[in-house]
């Protein structure tokens, strides 16, 4: 099937739509990384087997040229509700089955697929009741899914389904109804800002590339989603790869480029696999390659797999890595739009940004600007994780408040603990706290920047009262220090010294002066480092110092961890009321710090104690307590 004109694509779309409507029931088994780990692929296979045994007509692909009805069973991308996976969605009813096990397949096949009945026990339940439809569940109801809409709704591996759902319509419009300038103008007017963290207007970038004298240009997609706690881009690449390819194609038309590169993290093998197959399918369909749809526009897309270097998320390091070099950033200018990949003008956007592009071209600027805020239009996908009830992938309009995200969608804090803070933007970001009244802060580029945090790529890690903020700062500093490429002194040396100080503080040997030194170092590194990684490396320190200075002081002055998390600052004591004097703890203690007489309460010598916790795990009466 090589489509050679707009008419051929339109006719092909009709045949795909017809094939889709022939599937009277569509079963979408989530095959995102999360659900696959939960065993969703076995569920997928079992459902097909069962249907075949029952002599039901199963279609695993869109079967064109058949006129009878059938049951479509497919592997979709991430539905987002990873906490309760594996997920199975039944369309057109909109039912969502959660935590499906292999044993549940027979009931699903018999009841739902054969007789169109519900399996109620697999629906979502909480204290407010039972929800059979996916979009009635509070987790989904409060979201606006426009970029992730098809993740979980379509077969991630099928270009036919993407086309049936209106895919490549934006490409059609860009190719046949617009010229490069018009596309750039439309993207600029839409107000689309880069979703990778910086928030730079995408359209402005495109115009700058278009206006370069050099005619060899590149379109690069940054899929090196390295922020720990973020997986939005992974889900798009796995769940709806064609949307992103279509966005890159449109960027190609807009900037008159002929070659595109996708740089994907090595930790995302499934995404690489799905992208490869999608590129093949698009090539076979004539939507990638030479003379696309019979026009004189030609465009190819290559995939480069990263090799594990966080700094490669930085533009100039990423292009160096695609060139086969060490992924080290360089001094700017010249900027990537002037001299990026192979020193040619380069458009570099991230996965989510490209996935927004087809929506804008298809639905128009006014529609796009009706979502989100004046200065940050559209939506943002967040990966909400940590100590929150509903973890997963969500999408909300820009400007949604933190409260709505954590409590309405996230369902509040796990185990009904108190909310303490969220860490946003990964190791480059900061924290938003209850104490500073930031629960009602709108999440958009500018509001976050004002309070010293950033959207980053969209990782939101929720922390409860038992999380020590100094330890959080240490954790991120450890990460950044590890990932510092070593090219510039402020980052290479500064992150190491900051880490040492933080380790002293959580280790109970910090001094009061350490806090001032830490702050001074943090400010210096922020001002003097070469690239984005170094410039933002101190953000978690500065932000926790700003909002949780008293926790730092408690660690160095009182030698106490207020959250009770730092092992080195714990003191183990035996509660004499609970102790039966069995001597089990004393026998377990590796340093002989516990003594006492049988049948009367034992005691721990805190000078000898190494705080290993062996006594606590050994005690059958919960008499050993941490204070």
């Amino acid at each position, binding site marked *: 099937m090589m489509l050679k004109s707009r008419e051929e694509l339109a006719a092909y779309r009709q045949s795909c739509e017809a094939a889709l409507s022939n599937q009277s029931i569509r079963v979408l088994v989530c095959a995102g*990384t*999360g659900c*696959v*780990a*939960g065993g969703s692929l076995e569920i997928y296979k079992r459902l097909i087997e069962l249907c075949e045994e029952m002599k039901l007509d199963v279609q695993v692909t869109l079967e064109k040229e058949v006129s009878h009805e059938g049951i479509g069973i497919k592997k979709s991308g991430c539905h987002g509700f*990873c*906490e309760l*996976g594996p997920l199975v969605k039944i369309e057109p009813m909109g039912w969502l089955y959660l935590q499906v096990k292999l044993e549940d397949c027979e009931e699903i096949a018999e009841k739902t697929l054969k007789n169109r009945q519900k399996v109620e026990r697999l629906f979502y339940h909480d204290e407010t009741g039972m929800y059979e439809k996916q979009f009635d569940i509070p987790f989904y109801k409060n979201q606006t899914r426009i970029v992730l809409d098809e993740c979980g709704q379509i077969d991630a591996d099928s270009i036919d389904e993407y086309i049936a759902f209106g895919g490549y319509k934006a490409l059609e419009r860009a190719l046949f109804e617009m010229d490069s300038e018009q596309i750039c103008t439309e993207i600029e007017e839409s107000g689309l800002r880069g979703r990778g963290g910086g928030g730079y207007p995408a359209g402005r970038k495109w115009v700058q590339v278009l206006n370069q004298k050099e005619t060899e240009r590149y379109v690069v997609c940054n899929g090196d*989603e*390295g*922020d*720990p*706690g*973020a*997986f939005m881009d*992974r889900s798009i690449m796995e769940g709806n790869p064609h949307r992103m390819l279509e966005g890159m194609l449109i960027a190609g038309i807009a900037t008159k480029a002929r070659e595109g590169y996708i740089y994907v*993290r*090595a*930790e*995302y*093998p499934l995404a690489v696999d799905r992208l490869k197959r999608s590129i093949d399918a698009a090539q076979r369909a004539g939507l990638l390659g030479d003379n696309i749809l019979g026009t004189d526009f030609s465009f190819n897309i290559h995939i*480069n*797999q*990263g*090799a*594990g*270097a*966080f700094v490669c998320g930085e533009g100039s390091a990423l292009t160096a*890595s*695609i*060139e*086969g*070099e*060490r*992924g*080290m950033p360089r001094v700017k200018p010249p900027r990537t739009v002037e001299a990026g990949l192979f020193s040619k003008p380069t458009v570099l956007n991230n996965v989510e940004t490209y996935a927004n592009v087809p929506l804008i071209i298809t639905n128009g600027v006014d529609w796009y600007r009706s979502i989100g805020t004046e200065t940050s239009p559209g939506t943002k996908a967040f*990966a909400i*994780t*940590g*100590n929150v009830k509903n*973890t*997963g*992938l969500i999408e909300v309009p820009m400007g949604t408040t933190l409260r709505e995200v954590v409590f309405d969608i996230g369902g509040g804090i796990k185990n009904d603990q108190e909310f303490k803070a969220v*860490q946003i933007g*990964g190791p480059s970001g900061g924290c938003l706290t209850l104490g500073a009244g930031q629960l009602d802060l709108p999440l958009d580029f500018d509001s976050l920047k004002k309070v010293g945090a950033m959207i980053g790529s969209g*990782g939101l*890690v929720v*922390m409860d009262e038992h*999380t020590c903020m100094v330890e*959080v700062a240490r*954790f*991120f500093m450890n*990460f950044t220090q*590890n*990932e510092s*490429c070593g090219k510039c002194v402020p980052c290479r040396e500064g992150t190491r010294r900051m880490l040492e100080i933080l380790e002293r503080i959580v280790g109970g040997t910090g001094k009061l002066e350490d806090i001032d030194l830490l702050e001074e170092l943090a400010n210096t590194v922020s001002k003097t480092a070469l690239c984005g990684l170094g410039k933002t490396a101190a953000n978690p320190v500065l932000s926790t110092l700003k909002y949780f200075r008293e926790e730092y002081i408690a660690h160095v002055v009182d030698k106490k961890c207020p959250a009770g998390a730092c092992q080195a600052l714990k003191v183990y004591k035996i509660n004499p009321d609970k102790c039966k004097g069995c001597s089990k703890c004393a026998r377990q203690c590796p340093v002989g710090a516990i003594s006492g007489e049988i049948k009367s309460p034992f005691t721990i010598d805190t000078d000898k104690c190494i705080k290993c916790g062996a006594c606590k795990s050994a005690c059958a009466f919960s008499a050993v307590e941490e204070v």
Partner: protein
Amino acid sequence: MEQNFDFKAVDSILEFYGNEQKNLITILQCVQADHRYLPREILEYIAEKMGISLAKIYSVATFYENFSLDPKGKYVIKICDGTACHVRKSIPILEKVRETLGVTAEKPTTSDMMFTVETVSCLGACGLAPVMTINDKVYPAMTPEKAVELLNAVREEDNE
């Protein structure tokens, strides 16, 4: 330890991707996929074939976390210590696994070359935190106890 390497396989990798510098990382990834590490002999061979200095190849190979110049075990265990896994207690899992296998951060591979234990910054499976992987298969919602059971299961399966 003197080993014979299959240079023919290296030849076909080089032929497939071409000798330009821009393909170096991909080529190294293929070599590592075959050998589970980058043997010096093969790097020397590649340097000569590609006309790139060995120093240059080493500079690239040592820059990226995923490349290893030391042989790895048959089963590579990665314990995720990304933010989400970290706040859901990934470190006790790492400690338990290291203790069980008798490995450390400095010596991550068991002497029988069965297991290598590493940490990874984020696998992007944060909804299932804490997670670990064994040869890229993801195991969700781990605890130190579950990790030990898993290790035993892998050992048993390997014995069969």
